[in-house]
């Protein structure tokens, strides 16, 4: 069962990582992806909107798919919402398994599908007062599509 959090508050990468190995000796590796807000082109802040209720359901479904495909001993997804400043973390994906391949592949899968199958929207606020909704990128759809296989969701 994955640990899934959608929250405004920052998260503690070290504490979350430690929690996946605490009290067990069957974990051989923990893979992580930490998404961070870049400050391109005078970005002052990123504002993340989501669909409460559906967001948690969508992430739970993606995590269940990862757990069905790889032998994970643990999995954590934390996605922040609200106003996030350049340099601050946005999203954390942690996967633990007996062996590195499963942890690394499941981690890549989770962030690829999170980007295209969970209801979040980013609005950029710039120092000069401009605002802009981030457009979906074809590269993200292609990254997500590489995990689609016959008979899978």
């Amino acid at each position, binding site marked *: 069962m994955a640990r899934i959090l959608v929250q405004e508050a920052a998260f503690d990468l070290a504490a979350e990582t430690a929690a996946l190995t605490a009290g067990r000796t069957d974990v051989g590796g923990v893979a992580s992806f930490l998404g961070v807000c870049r400050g391109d082109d005078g970005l002052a802040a990123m504002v993340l909107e989501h*669909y409460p209720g*559906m967001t948690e359901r969508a992430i739970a479904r993606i995590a269940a798919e990862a757990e069905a495909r790889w032998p994970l001993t643990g999995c954590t997804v934390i996605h922040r919402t609200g106003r996030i400043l350049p340099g601050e973390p946005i999203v954390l994906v942690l996967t633990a398994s007996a062996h590195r391949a499963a942890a690394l592949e499941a981690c890549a899968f989770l962030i690829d599908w999170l980007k295209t*199958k969970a209801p979040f929207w980013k609005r950029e606020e710039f120092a000069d007062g401009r605002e802009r909704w981030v457009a979906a990128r074809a590269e993200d759809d292609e990254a997500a599509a590489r995990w689609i296989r016959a008979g899978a969701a």
Partner: protein
Amino acid sequence: MRVLYFAWLRQKVGTAEEEVSPPPEVRDVAGLVRWLSARSPAHAAAFADPRQVRAAVNQDFATPDHPVAANDEVAFFPPVTGG
């Protein structure tokens, strides 16, 4: 029927949520979009480019041919950009 809007669709429509009672001939997501578009110029502007609009019915992603019913929660939003 409860209709929700997110991101720039919410801004264009001018509300995050509305309660609507479409006529019985509105049977699917595409029909609901056509009916909502006729409600106001703001709705028409929000739905002007169907390629930029995604939908969910009862909190699951839904295609234009997905059925809609009186007690459903239907959401409209742009392609997602999280992560």
